[in-house]
């Protein structure tokens, strides 16, 4: 007996179709399907239904062998795939959203690499200490404070060297240090 007919037979059993009639229908169907197959006609063309249970129930119901109506035809199972696709899409979008947020969080957590403007260290060698301090300050540098008592001292050296490009100061590293010599009286 073919699997389709076996399934029908089981359904007729389940529905309470008397054995004699169930056997009769199963035999009839089996013989017809075998002959159709020999003719090259598919079983689907003969039974017109892919669901054996529904087919069996409809047949039995139409013959008046069962009171139970045939189960509603199962629609082609498109919706599970639609659901799977939708879930996948939601997961994908969520993952992308998390990735994007993670990236933005990560980038906001990291110190921002902003390239500060660079300035050229002016040459203050030879100048008096206080004017030199002013020149350096005007250039945007930090200068170690020159006490007023040494205002007249002459600058004989500086660090960083004149003409060097340094980032705009943000700490002691770029503080200009002046080497002063006491002014001659």
């Amino acid at each position: 007996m073919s699997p389709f007919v076996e399934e029908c037979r089981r359904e007729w059993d389940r529905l309470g179709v008397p054995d004699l009639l169930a056997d009769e229908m199963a035999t009839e169907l089996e013989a017809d399907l075998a002959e159709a197959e020999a003719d090259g006609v598919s079983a689907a063309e003969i039974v017109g239904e892919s669901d054996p249970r529904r087919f069996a129930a409809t047949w039995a119901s139409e013959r008046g062998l069962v009171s139970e109506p045939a189960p509603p035809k199962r629609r082609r199972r498109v919706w599970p795939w639609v659901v799977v696709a939708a879930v996948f899409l939601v997961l994908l979008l969520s993952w992308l959203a998390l990735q994007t947020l993670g990236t933005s969080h990560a980038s906001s957590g990291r110190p921002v690499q902003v390239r500060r403007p660079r300035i050229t260290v002016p040459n203050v060698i030879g100048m008096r200490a206080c004017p030199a301090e002013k020149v350096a300050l005007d250039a945007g540098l930090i200068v170690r404070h020159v006490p007023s008592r040494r205002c007249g001292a002459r600058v004989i050296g500086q660090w960083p060297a004149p003409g060097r490009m340094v980032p705009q100061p943000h700490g002691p590293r770029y503080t200009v240090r002046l080497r002063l010599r006491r002014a001659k009286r």
Partner: protein
Amino acid sequence: MRRMAAESRRSQMLRGVLDLCLLAVVIDEPAYGYEMTRRLRERGLSTVGEGSIYPLLGRLEREGLVATHREASDGGPPRKYYSASPSGRRALNEGVRAWRDVRGEVDAVLATLEAEVTG
């Protein structure tokens, strides 16, 4: 999609007259299920749409429109033969008349569209 819709319409239209077709192919000579399918094919009805002839044969049997008997087959199990019962013959005659009336009425309505549809 359009093809599916066309098949569905065809199937629905057939549903109302397939019992007449089955009675028609056994009016002169009994036949078993698959043989009836074969006769339908020979007369141009290659597919019967959704469903199958078996539930319909079951209904015809229940309503007494077909008579059945078993006949031995060559080497295989005995086959169940269907033939039109007297009430089946009457039902067929009435059904054919009704079908022709409906077909004529529908044709009359649709004929006005023929030029448009075929043009």
